[in-house]
């Protein structure tokens, strides 16, 4: 069973981190970082997503097979977006 009961403190810490991440994303969006704006925004989003998956979705406390499933979803997403963009970026369309 899901015997692992996550301490309340952990949930509230993650919640605080997600809220702080949201505030930071908005703050950073209004600073001029050139092409880094998108990179920073996506990095913060990825960290927030990781926190949700590991703690709220209990993957941190789940079986190795659950890790493999979650990682597979991420891997195929990266392949789909990465290879598509590599294609478009090398066609000289933009």
């Amino acid at each position, binding site marked *: 069973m899901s015997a692992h009961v996550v301490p309340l403190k952990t949930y509230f810490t993650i919640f605080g981190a*997600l809220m702080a991440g949201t505030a930071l994303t908005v703050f950073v969006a209004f600073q001029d970082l050139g092409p880094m*704006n998108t990179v920073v925004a996506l990095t913060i*989003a990825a960290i927030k997503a990781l926190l949700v998956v590991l703690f709220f979705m209990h993957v941190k406390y789940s079986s190795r097979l659950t890790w493999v499933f979650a990682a597979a*979803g991420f891997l*195929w997403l990266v392949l789909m977006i990465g290879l598509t963009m590599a294609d478009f970026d090398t066609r000289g369309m933009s």
Partner: protein
Amino acid sequence: MSASSTPARRAQPLHAAGLAHHFEDLAQQHEAARLGMWAFLITEVMFFGGLFTGYAVYRNLYPAAFRLASHHLDVALGTTNTAVLIGSSLTMALAIREAQIGRWKPQIGYLIATMLLGATFLGIKSIEYHHKWVDHLMPGPGFDVSVFGAEGPHARIFYSFYFVMTGLHAFHMVVGLGLMAWITRRAARGDFTPGHHTALEMTGLYWHFVDLVWIFLFPLLYLIGRHG
């Protein structure tokens, strides 16, 4: 699992409550449910992933139009909705925790709070949709390309992505609220025990996934080149 246990099941008192006969024990049954749910969530990742890929391609092709179009979205409402959704993920996680430690009343309370926050999200979303409707920014024949000057036609592409992506996300929220109503009713009936609350936990996985999608939608749609 459900109240409609078969006569065959009742004839086998050795089985724990809620255990289907083809599983060894509740732990194995729970693990199977969790993996099945994750397999479903992967298909959801790929489903939304296709839209994110299309978005990436067109944003790369028309960066200026996407920036202009994005500036017509309301950052304050978008940020509020992000906070509301993260809050609902917290209450969902807490509801499952209460089931794990076998507390009935706070479990129902957190589930209702999750539903209220989900409904708040949809309410704010509909206010935003209404603004776009009034401003003629709904893709279709009514779309006012003149708002964006020469970038008008490409800005319309941004709004197509905006409405399809947030619309499908909102649809997932509606489905989530339906699941929550069902799960809250079961929780109120006392279905979930520390040893067996698989349905509650799987609904939680779905709810958190919908939150995940929004975590990426928010910066990609609302926050493009805001410093400009």
